[in-house]
């Protein structure tokens, strides 16, 4: 059987990115995917009549522009279109909107609190300081702080120097920012409860923490550090759904001679004499290569797809302790018409925005208390979008696709597995909440796809349904991600590499882990580097 230069497991955005950069360097790369379709969690699916769902990830901001350009994604059909701001509705029928126009946003904030409108400058300045600081590390490999290798020492020095360059005040603010809760952090800027609540969501999306949990201020940053066309913190839609991103990446990969096999997952990563030799698929086929790159989560790679005898027990223990608790679920809804949100009074522009229904910090925190107790939130936080208002390809004219991201949703129900009845109960909780804000909503529903952590794990392979392939807490960031000592994409077995979001810099459709892993592999094999450097903003 033919031996490939490399096999990449999992055709999610990081897997394809990795494969594409390797292929661009002239390697013969085989990409294997368990599903019949590619895309992983960046996918567009046609599950009901003429509707297209972005049925996992649903918006785009973090995708690194350097990678966009290097893989020539526009040429392969990708178009990212910004959408209009966000809106948080209140229980008493009002709302707080944020617009793409700065003055309109300021006026809207002033409607609620003139002081907070002004404080927003201070807030945005400080968030931007953090974004600038962190962005430069996204397309770099983290150093090993315990190592004495020149490369690690230089990188540590680099981080230290950049940290120092922030200036005394900002250094202190940075240290506090990384260790505070989003609720406490916002208290230092704002006084209006609704304004605080509207900023809070970004601090918890995808994370197993509450808005009052220290560490959530950083999660806000993880959602703010992206941009659309240089407009920092802005989010957009991929035209045609999130699958358009992975399709374009795959176009690039195929164009550079890559081969893709779908429909059979990896049963085992094969190791011979302490060196990776290939993969055995579920269908019994074996494929061989000296390099195997896993885009699967850390636990799935090492606890499910490897022979434990090929790994050290301490390493396996660390994989078992990897924090990858799911906290979110999703409803993908086909609508026969436009829902009418009481608070929005028919304002179509606001319906194009990112819509939220939770209007207080306390409600958000209570939603988390339910998760801690092993149930989905009775009063959940939802992040709701109607992409079909912006992207005409998502639903037939006059009909709409609505993406409803929901938090919190636990990986298990009080310690046991999800059942279909749980799933329906969860669905009804969410639909009930939307109905409260948009009477008549349920009557518009043509089809609902419900995604709990169970579905996310089974279909996309996200362990415990964690959308970031591992929680974004201090123990799993930078040189700690995924586990200390293995933060440089190199696995514990010769020839085995990791390129998924379990690795630095983490989840979101960023493609940085895939690119970083490719850079490391190419350097290791003394191949020309095809991975771009980060663009610095000075």
């Amino acid at each position, binding site marked *: 059987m033919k031996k490939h230069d490399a096999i990449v497991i999992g055709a999610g955005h990081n897997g394809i990115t990795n494969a594409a950069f390797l292929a661009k360097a002239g390697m013969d790369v085989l990409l294997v995917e368990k599903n019949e379709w590619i895309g992983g969690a960046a996918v567009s699916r046609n599950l009901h009549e003429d509707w297209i769902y972005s049925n996992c990830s649903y918006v785009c901001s973090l995708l690194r522009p350097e990678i966009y350009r290097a893989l020539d994604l526009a040429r392969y059909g990708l178009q990212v279109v910004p959408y209009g701001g966000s809106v948080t509705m209140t229980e008493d029928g009002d709302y707080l909107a944020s617009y793409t126009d700065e*003055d309109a946003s300021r*006026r809207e904030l002033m409607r609620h609190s*003139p002081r907070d409108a*002004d*404080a927003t*400058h201070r807030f945005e300045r400080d968030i931007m300081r953090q974004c600038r600081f962190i962005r430069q590390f996204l397309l770099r490999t983290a150093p090993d702080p315990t190592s004495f290798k020149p490369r690690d020492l230089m990188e540590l020095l680099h981080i230290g120097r950049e940290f120092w360059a922030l200036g005394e005040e900002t250094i202190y603010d940075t240290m506090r920012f990384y260790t505070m809760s989003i609720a406490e952090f916002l208290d230092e800027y704002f006084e209006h409860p609704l304004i605080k609540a509207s900023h809070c969501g970004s601090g918890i999306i995808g994370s197993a923490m509450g808005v009052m949990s220290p560490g959530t201020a950083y999660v806000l940053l993880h959602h703010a550090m992206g941009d659309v066309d240089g407009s920092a913190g802005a989010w957009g839609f991929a035209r045609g759904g999130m699958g358009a991103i992975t399709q374009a990446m795959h176009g690039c990969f195929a164009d550079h001679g890559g081969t893709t096999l779908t429909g059979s997952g990896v049963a085992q990563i094969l190791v011979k004499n302490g060196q990776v030799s290939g993969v055995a698929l579920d269908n019994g086929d074996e494929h061989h290569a000296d390099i195997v790159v896993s885009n699967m989560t850390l636990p799935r790679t090492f606890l499910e797809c490897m022979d434990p005898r090929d790994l050290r027990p301490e390493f396996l223990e660390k994989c078992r302790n990897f924090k990858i608790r799911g906290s979110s679920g999703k409803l993908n809804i086909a609508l026969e018409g436009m829902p009418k949100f009481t608070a929005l009074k028919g304002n179509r522009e606001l319906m194009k925005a990112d819509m939220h229904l939770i209007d207080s910090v306390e409600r958000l925190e209570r939603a988390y208390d339910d998760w801690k107790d092993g149930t989905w939130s009775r009063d959940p936080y939802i992040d709701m979008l109607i992409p079909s208002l912006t992207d005409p390809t998502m639903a037939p004219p006059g009909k709409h696709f609505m993406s409803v991201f929901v938090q919190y949703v636990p990986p298990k129900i009080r310690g046991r597995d999800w059942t279909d009845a749980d799933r329906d109960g969860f669905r009804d909780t969410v639909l009930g909440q939307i109905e409260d804000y948009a009477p008549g909503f349920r009557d518009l529903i043509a089809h609902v796809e419900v995604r709990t952590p169970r579905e996310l794990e089974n279909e996309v392979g996200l362990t415990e349904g964690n959308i970031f392939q591992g929680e974004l807490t201090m123990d799993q960031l930078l040189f700690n991600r995924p586990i200390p000592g293995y933060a440089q994409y190199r696995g514990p077995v010769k020839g085995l590499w990791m390129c998924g979001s379990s690795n630095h810099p983490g989840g979101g459709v960023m493609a940085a882990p895939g690119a970083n892993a490719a850079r490391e592999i190419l350097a290791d094999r003394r191949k020309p580097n095809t991975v771009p450097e980060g663009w610095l903003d000075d």
Partner: protein
Amino acid sequence: MKTFNIDSREHYRNKVFPSPFHERQAALNENREWSRWYDYLSVPAYTCSTMEYFAGRNTCGVFDLTPMTKHRITGPDALTFLNRLVTRDMTKVKPGRVGYSVWCDDRGQVIDDGTVFHLHEGDYRLCSQEHQIDWLLINARGFDVSVVEDTHDVAALALQGPTSCAVLKKMNLPEVESITPFGLKHFDFEGTQLTVSRTGYTGDLGYELWIDPDHAGVLWDRLFEAGELHGIQPMGSEALELLRIEAGFILAGEDFAPAMHTVRHRNTRSPFELGLGWLVDFDKPVFNGRRALLREKAEGSRYALVKLDIEDNKPAEHAYVYDTRGRNIGWVTSAMWSPSAKKNIALATVETPHGETGEKMKVEIYYQRELKWHRKMADAVVVRDAFWDPPRRRATPPADF
């Protein structure tokens, strides 16, 4: 004429709204062009900014100041509050006087500059370039003081130029000519109070008029009636920009980056670095930035803001500045051909120790002739005084023309 109901929050749903002078402005706005100044519509130029500029230097021009951010500061601690806020000594600004001020963060970096009007004993108006209510309320903690942003409650006009006093006298404002520079007086006017201050942003004889919005229209009408024979003209923001550069006044967001908006901390400036060291009074025991500024005074500043007199006549906007050996030492922040001084002038930021008066520099100017770009390394010299500073600016009583 109030253009909206301030008590209802509904007006915030409009992105921008007309000033109380809007109808008058619209009637005169031949260009039909409007720009946005925070919440208000503002006129860039009514007919021709050059002619409006010359009205400001030769007769008088009227500029709508209403959109400028204004605050009312009252209460027993008003003075101590202000004294901690700004760098200058406010005890020296007596009732009926106005003080140009600058305020800093704890790092001694400039947040904004503006004017403080001591309207009555213990009753102040603070005008700023940027929104400041967040910072002012942070500052108010621990003081018995009320700080209210009242931008929408005060209509204001700037009347600037050599015939401005004559116009006001014709409006029968008793002893208006006795107001000294940076002085103010209150007058009964059409059943309300009109406050006139001898202040402005043009470096020439000029006044600013403050009134409640319901009387805005009548003020405008009376002003233009009185000014008819004195060459009164409405003036847009483009003309004002030319006037302020000639006067050597700095603009937030142009000549310095306000600290509250500045992400890269090295890009902010201290008062010393903006040439405003004369506004810093270390005899005050405490004010924001004092400790940092004391250190800066001892250790030296990083930058200096200079006025450049540049050879030739090609405006030096966005130009790099070099020392005579060709080393890049800074950049131009505002530049123009000065029609009054007949000089090519600029405000520039240069690294210290550069920036001494009389120092020679080079300015790299890019200019276009029929779409073709040219580059010129022009000689420039640092000058101390404003490019335009006529004696009539200070004379009291002012002459009629």
